[in-house]
C-alpha cells in the first residue's frame, strides 16, 4: 500500500518536473524573443543554443536562426534554419525565414524558391503568399503578384490610397483613373488600366502599386504610388536640363504640368534652326469622366527649306520654302489598358514658294478628320499590338483638297531567355493614300527627332539642315527589327525630376520600300539600313542615340530620336 502510494507520488513528481522543465524551456524561448526585441542578440543566441542542447524544438531553431540573422551571421542563420526545416518538415516558417534571409542578401531567386517550398507544405500560408506577391510587386511584375494573391482569392481591397493618403485626399486625376473598387478583388487588368490612364494624363513620371495587409485576414490596402512631373522653373537644375535638351535636339522647351491643380498640361517647344524652324504648343486636359478621357489640343508651325532633288525623278528641282500652320483637336479614351481610341479634327494652312512642280504646289488648306485605334492583342511573355490610323480630308470641312489615307502597323515584343536580359522588337507597317495629297502628307522613311516611319540609315535633313533627303512616296511598307539588351536599371527612387529609367544597348535592321503614284519621286527600290545605339527608356517614351547606315545608298544617320512606348 505504502509502496504503491510512494510510486504514485514519484510519478506525480516526475510529471510535475516534466511540466516545469517544458515550461522553463518555453520561458527560455520567450526570454530569447524578448532579447531579440531589445537588440540583445548575443544573449538570445546563448539562451537558444542552451535550449537546443537540452530539448530541441521548432521554435528554438527558428528564433536561433532569426537571432543569427540579426547579428549578421548569415551562414549560421542559414544553416540553423535549414537544419530546423529538415527536422520539422511540416513547419513552413523555416522556409519563410530562409526567404527573408536570402532577400537580405539580395538573392531573389533563392527567396522565391524558399517561399514556394513553404507553399508546398502549407498552400494557405498567408505569410508566404503575401511575401511572394510583394516581391513580385516590388520587382514590378504586377501580373505575377496579383496571380499569387489570387491563390487565396485576393487581394480583396479594403481601401484605395494614393502615396499613403486616402484616395479622397488625392489629386482628382488619380481618383478618375482608378479602375478598381473597394470590397472587390483587384485584378491585373484593372491595375493596368489605372496605370495606363495615369500615364496618359501626362502629369506623372511613374505610377506603381503597393498592396498592404490590414488586420482583417484577406483584406488589403491598395496604395497607388505616383511621381508628379516637375514644372520647369529657372533653377540651376532646370537650366542644366534645358541645356541638355538643347544640345541633343536643338530645341527649347517649356513645360507646365498640372496648372493650378487643374490637371491641365502645357508643353511648348521651339526649334530656331533656319532650315527647319518649328514651333509647337500642346495642351493636354484630362476630362473628369470615366474611361480615362483626355482632350489634346495642339498647334504646329513650320518654316522649312526643302531640297528634294536627290530623291525626285527630276533632279533639277531647286530648293524651295515650305511653311505651314496647323491646329489639331483630339479626344482620346482608354476604356481598357488593351484598347486606346482617339478621334479628332486637324486644320492645316500651307504655303510653298520657289520653282516647284504643279503637283507639289498650290495646295493651301486642308481640313481632315482623324481616327486612331490601338489594340493590345497579347500581353503575356510575348506582347503584340495592332495600331491603325486613318484620315479623310474634304473640301467641305474647311479644306481645298479631297484626299484620304491611313497606316496599319503590327508591333511585337519577344523576350529572349531571362539571363540574356534581351528582347527582340519588330514592327511591320504599311501606309496608303488616295487623292491629291499635300507635300507634308507624303510618307517619309527616315529618322528625325519624332519620326513616325523609322528608316534609321536615312536622315530627314541634309548637312545644310534642309528637308528632305529621305525617300518619300504615297504608299510605303516598312519592317523594323531591334534587338536590345538591358545595361542598367535606374528605376529605383523615381522622382518628379528624374523619371524611372532603363538604359539599354540596341542593334537594328530596317527594310522598307516607298511607292509614289504621282510620279514625282524616284521609282521604288528596296531600302535597307542597319546600325546600333543606346536607348534610355522611361515609362512612356524612349530616347535613342543611334548610328545607322544605309546598306544600299551612301546615306547615314547619327543622332537622336524619341518614340512613344506601347
Amino acid at each position, binding site marked *: 500500500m505504502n509502496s504503491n502510494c510512494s510510486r504514485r507520488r514519484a510519478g506525480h513528481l516526475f510529471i510535475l518536473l516534466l511540466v516545469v522543465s517544458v515550461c522553463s524551456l518555453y520561458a527560455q524561448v520567450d526570454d530569447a*524573443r524578448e532579447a*531579440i*526585441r531589445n*537588440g*540583445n*542578440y*548575443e544573449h538570445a543566441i546563448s539562451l537558444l543554443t542552451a535550449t537546443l542542447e537540452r530539448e530541441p524544438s521548432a521554435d528554438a531553431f527558428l528564433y536561433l*536562426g*532569426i537571432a543569427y*540573422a*540579426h*547579428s*549578421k*551571421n*548569415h*551562414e549560421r542563420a542559414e544553416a540553423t534554419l535549414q537544419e530546423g526545416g529538415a527536422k520539422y518538415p511540416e513547419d513552413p516558417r523555416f522556409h*519563410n*525565414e530562409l526567404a*527573408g*534571409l536570402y*532577400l*537580405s*542578401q*539580395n*538573392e*531573389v531567386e533563392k527567396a522565391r524558391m524558399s517561399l514556394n517550398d513553404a507553399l508546398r507544405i502549407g498552400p494557405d500560408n498567408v*505569410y508566404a503568399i*503575401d*511575401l511572394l506577391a510583394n*516581391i513580385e510587386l*516590388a*520587382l514590378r511584375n504586377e501580373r505575377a503578384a496579383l496571380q499569387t494573391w489570387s491563390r487565396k482569392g485576393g487581394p480583396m481591397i479594403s481601401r484605395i*490610397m*494614393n*502615396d*499613403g*493618403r*486616402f484616395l479622397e*485626399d488625392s489629386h482628382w486625376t488619380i481618383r478618375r483613373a482608378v479602375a478598381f473598387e473597394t470590397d472587390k478583388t483587384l485584378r491585373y487588368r484593372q491595375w493596368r488600366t489605372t496605370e495606363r490612364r495615369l500615364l496618359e494624363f501626362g502629369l506623372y513620371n511613374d505610377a506603381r502599386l*503597393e498592396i*498592404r*495587409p*490590414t*488586420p482583417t485576414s484577406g483584406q488589403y490596402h491598395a*496604395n497607388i*504610388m505616383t*511621381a*508628379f512631373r516637375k514644372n520647369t522653373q529657372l533653377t540651376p537644375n532646370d537650366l542644366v536640363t534645358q541645356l541638355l535638351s538643347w544640345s541633343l535636339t536643338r530645341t527649347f522647351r517649356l513645360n507646365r504640368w498640372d496648372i493650378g491643380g487643374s490637371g491641365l498640361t502645357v508643353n511648348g517647344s521651339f526649334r530656331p534652326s533656319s532650315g527647319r524652324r518649328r514651333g509647337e504648343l500642346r495642351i493636354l486636359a484630362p476630362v473628369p469622366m470615366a474611361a480615362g478621357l483626355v482632350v489634346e489640343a495642339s498647334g504646329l508651325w513650320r518654316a522649312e527649306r526643302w531640297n528634294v532633288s536627290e530623291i525626285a525623278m527630276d533632279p533639277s528641282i531647286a530648293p524651295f520654302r515650305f511653311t505651314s500652320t496647323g491646329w489639331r483637336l483630339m479626344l482620346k479614351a482608354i476604356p481598357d489598358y488593351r484598347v486606346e481610341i482617339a478621334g479628332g479634327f486637324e486644320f492645316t494652312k500651307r504655303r510653298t514658294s520657289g520653282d516647284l512642280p504643279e503637283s507639289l504646289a498650290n495646295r493651301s488648306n486642308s481640313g481632315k478628320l482623324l481616327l486612331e485605334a490601338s489594340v493590345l492583342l497579347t500581353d503575356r511573355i510575348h506582347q503584340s499590338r495592332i495600331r491603325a490610323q486613318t484620315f479623310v480630308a474634304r473640301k467641305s470641312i474647311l479644306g481645298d483638297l479631297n484626299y484620304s489615307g491611313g497606316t496599319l502597323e503590327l508591333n511585337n515584343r519577344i523576350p529572349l531567355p531571362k539571363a540574356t*536580359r534581351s528582347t527582340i522588337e519588330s514592327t511591320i507597317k504599311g501606309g496608303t493614300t488616295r487623292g491629291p495629297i499635300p507635300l507634308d502628307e507624303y510618307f517619309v522613311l527616315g529618322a528625325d527627332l519624332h519620326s513616325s516611319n523609322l528608316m534609321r540609315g536615312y536622315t530627314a535633313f541634309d548637312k545644310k539642315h534642309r528637308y528632305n533627303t529621305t525617300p518619300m512616296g504615297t504608299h510605303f511598307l516598312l519592317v523594323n527589327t531591334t534587338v536590345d539588351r*538591358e545595361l*542598367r*536599371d535606374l*528605376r*529605383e*527612387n*523615381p*522622382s*518628379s*525630376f*528624374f523619371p524611372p529609367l532603363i538604359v539599354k544597348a540596341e542593334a537594328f535592321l530596317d527594310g522598307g520600300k516607298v511607292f509614289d503614284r504621282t510620279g514625282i519621286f524616284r521609282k521604288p527600290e528596296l531600302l535597307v539600313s542597319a546600325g546600333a545605339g543606346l536607348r534610355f527608356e522611361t515609362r512612356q517614351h524612349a530616347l535613342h542615340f543611334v548610328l545607322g547606315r544605309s546598306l544600299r545608298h551612301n546615306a547615314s544617320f547619327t543622332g537622336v530620336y524619341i518614340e512613344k512606348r506601347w
Partner: protein
Amino acid sequence: MRRLLFTIVSVIATLGWMRAAQNPQTLRVDVRLVNVVATVADSKGTFVSSLTADDFTLYEDGVAQKIAHFTQDRDVPVSVGIVLDTSGSMTSRIGSATAGITRFIESIHADDDVFIMTFARNVSLVQDFTSDRRKLSRALGSIRIEGGTAFYDGVRHALEKIKEGRHDKKAILVFSDAMDMGSKATLEDVLLNVRRSEVLVYGLGTDQTTYADTSEHVPFTLPTPASAGRGPRNTRPAAGGRGAVASNGVNLKVLNQLSTSSGGQEFLLSGTVMDTGFSRIDAILAQIADEMRSQYTLGYYPSAPDNGQFHSIRVVTRPEYRVRTRAGYQGRE
C-alpha cells in the same frame, strides 16, 4: 520759510544731479532671461503636469539659480515648424508622414501657428506660418519627392524661420533619415544654432521600410528592379547591437544630438510593409503634442556674467520624477 527750504532742497538736488552727470557711475545689470523648457515624467513615462515652481531646482554650470519666471504650458500656444525630408529615400514613407502630420496639426492648440518646410536637394518653404488648418493640409498634399538630402541646411533654415513665430514657445519637428548629402551647413553650425536658440527640436527618424516585425522575423527589405539585377551581397559576420547609424539607415546619433541640445527628443519610425496603417507615426505625434502641453517653462537670470562659453543647465525635481531639458545654452559675448 517754506519757500527758502524748497529753494535749498532744489539747489542741493540740482548740484547732486550735476555732480552725478560729471562723474557717471557705470551700473551694469545682467538682464539675460534664460528660458528652459522642462519635460517631467514618472517612472512609467507618464507626463506630470501638476508641479509648482517650488518643486524645481535649477543649476547653471553647477550653481543653483533663482527661478524668476514659471509657467505650466497646458494652454500656452506654440509656434511649430514642420520640416520634412522629401528626398528619394522617403518615397514610400512620405504619404504616411504627411497623413500623420495632418492629423497632428488638427489635434494641436487652435492658436498654434505652424509652418511647413521641405528639403531634398534644396530647402523650400511650402507653407509660411499660419493657424489655418486647411492651408496647412493643402500644403502637405502638394509635397513631392526630389533628389538629394540637404538635412543640415533644412534644419538651419527652419531654426531661422521659427524666430518669426508669434509665440514664445517654439518647437521644430524634423522628419528625416538624417543622412545628409550636399548641405552647405555642417552639423556643428546646426548644433551651435540650436544651443543659441530656445527651440525644442524633435527628430523623427524615418527608416527604410522592412517587411515585417523584425523581432519575430529575419530583417530584410523588399528588392527593387535595380537591386535584383545586382546579385548576392557579400556576407560578413558582424557583432549585434545598435550602432550610431542604425542598420535601417537612420542617423540616430545626429537626431539625438539635435534633440538633447534643445530639450526635445528623437524617435525611430520603424515601418514595415505588414504595418496595418499609420499607428506608429500617429502615436509618436500624439506623444509630442501631449508633451508640449505638459511641459513647464522656467525662466531665470543667470547669477554669473556671460563669458560667451557654453553653459550647462540641470533641472531637478522630486526624486520619483525624471526631468528632461536642454543640455545648456551657448553664450553670446
